[in-house]
């Protein structure tokens, strides 16, 4: 009896600090944000009505979904290509692939966005080079538009897309691949009809991670979009800091959380969380 009581006490004492911390510093203020969305500037559903009717907000939502979809396709395909070598390559190839995945992964989002500015801006590396070989006379506009945003976001998200794919590729039975080759299937055919279908759960997991991350992305679109291709996260920032309209900013945040939550629930119906690591 004493044992059970002290067990419960012990668990409660050890777990309480973090739970309290997050209730006070996260759950309670989140409810405050939800409250803002219903009360500012006037109580009611006005802000949610504005979300549906405001053409600017709508165009930002549509642009965000479009960019997120493109980034997802680009990132998953690119991640797939490098993961194949990371998981199945020769020892030297593996080390090199790991280096190319992990170095960008650990470098901050700001540095990486800045690297793309250095490459893509009007006086950046690519335009300088293309002009010096006489290929173009006027610099190409590669940043401050959707192209720059897609490039920068894909670059940021490829390493995140790699991990679920790698876990799927590691767990598949190599003998099946060898059997397919041994029975005379070509490399291409083995890849498309055996390898890819067997890594389906990794593809779904990695696509969902990239898509969900893209929806709430702030830094890269703000730097590489240059204020011209605003996505949801930047719109929230602008509503809160530039045209103080806290109610609308809060309402967009709530809609974003609900949307992402629904997507995650759908994801976990198809993939176990463990398969994503």
């Amino acid at each position, binding site marked *: 009896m004493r044992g059970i009581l002290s067990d419960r006490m012990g668990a409660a004492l050890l777990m309480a600090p973090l739970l309290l911390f997050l209730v006070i510093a996260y759950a309670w203020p989140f409810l405050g944000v939800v409250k803002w969305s219903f009360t500012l500037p006037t109580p009611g559903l006005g802000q949610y009505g504005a979300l549906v009717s405001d053409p600017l907000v709508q165009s930002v939502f549509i642009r965000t979904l479009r960019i997120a979809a493109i980034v997802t396709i680009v990132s998953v395909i690119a991640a797939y290509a490098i993961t*194949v070598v990371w998981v199945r390559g020769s020892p030297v190839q593996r080390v090199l692939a790991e280096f190319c995945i992990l170095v960008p992964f650990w470098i901050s989002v700001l540095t990486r966005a800045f690297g793309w500015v250095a490459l893509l801006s009007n006086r950046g590396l690519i335009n300088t080079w293309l002009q010096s070989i006489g290929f173009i006379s006027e610099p190409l506009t590669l940043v401050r538009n959707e192209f720059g945003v897609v490039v920068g976001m894909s670059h940021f998200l490829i390493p995140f897309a790699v991990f679920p794919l790698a876990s799927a590729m590691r767990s598949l039975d190599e003998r099946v691949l060898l059997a397919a080759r041994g029975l005379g299937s070509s490399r291409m055919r083995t890849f498309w009809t055996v390898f890819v279908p067997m890594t389906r759960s990794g593809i779904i997991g990695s696509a969902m991670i990239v898509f969900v991350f893209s929806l*709430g992305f702030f830094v890269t679109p703000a730097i590489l979009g240059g204020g011209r291709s605003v996505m949801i996260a930047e719109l929230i920032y602008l509503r809160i800091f530039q045209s103080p309209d806290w109610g609308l900013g809060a309402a967009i945040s709530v809609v974003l959380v609900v949307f*992402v939550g629904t997507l995650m629930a759908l994801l976990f119906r198809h993939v176990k969380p463990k398969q994503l690591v």
Partner: protein
Amino acid sequence: MPTYRPGPVSLILAVLVALFLLLPLLAVIPVSLTPSRMLTMPTGELSLRHYRSLIEDPRWLESILLSIRIGVVSSALSTVLALTFSLGVWMFQPRFTAALVGFVLLPMVVPPVVSAVTLYFLLTSVSGITSFFGYDTWLGVAMAHSVMTVPFATVLILVSLSQLDRRIDLAARGLGASVWERATRVIMPNIKFGIVTAALLSFVLSWEEIGVTLFITSVNAITLPRLMWMGLRDNIDPAIAALSVILIIITVLVLAVRSVVTRRQATP
């Protein structure tokens, strides 16, 4: 034994992706050496003036020191909270564990911009009560960073606990050790590596945090990423290129050391 290796087409595609991943990191090197005050490619002569300005301009040094202070405090807070919570979960396996862990992981899965609005709400509310803990204060930033990093610390510590043999804890318990003794003298020495990793990751995440920091600082608590952000948005300062080169070199060195160490551990 035959193995299934990627063919030439796979290799070519992988090389293209690898170039794409490394290109922007390499691109900052020439930019950092430009003698111009603008962001341009150096034409002819090279200069280290932007590296010098990192040392000479007090703003950079101040924000570096501030970022270190915030990183240390928030990492300590995250690690302690994550450690006690994880010990509770592992030692007592309470009911609703999955729900409680899920709750703790929320700041990791909620879109960062929503967490940023949430923490902005918290700190502006607190600002009315006390001036040194609210919006645009270093303590406020440290606390907000802890909220964002504590899920990562918790995951790392829970993972290293899950690899621990329960029987050593049962033995200690059978021999009459108290909860405190079991935690500090039996369990914690065995998950040292996980705890240190959690603290380091929390520090790194705080060190480079920008999404939340942008919402909760304005003029006083200028962390290094915040200063970089200001330099990137307004008039692009090539000192950022110099700083980026230094940060990239540090990252590459740390990863190289880590891979050498883990390889040595793998082949004794």
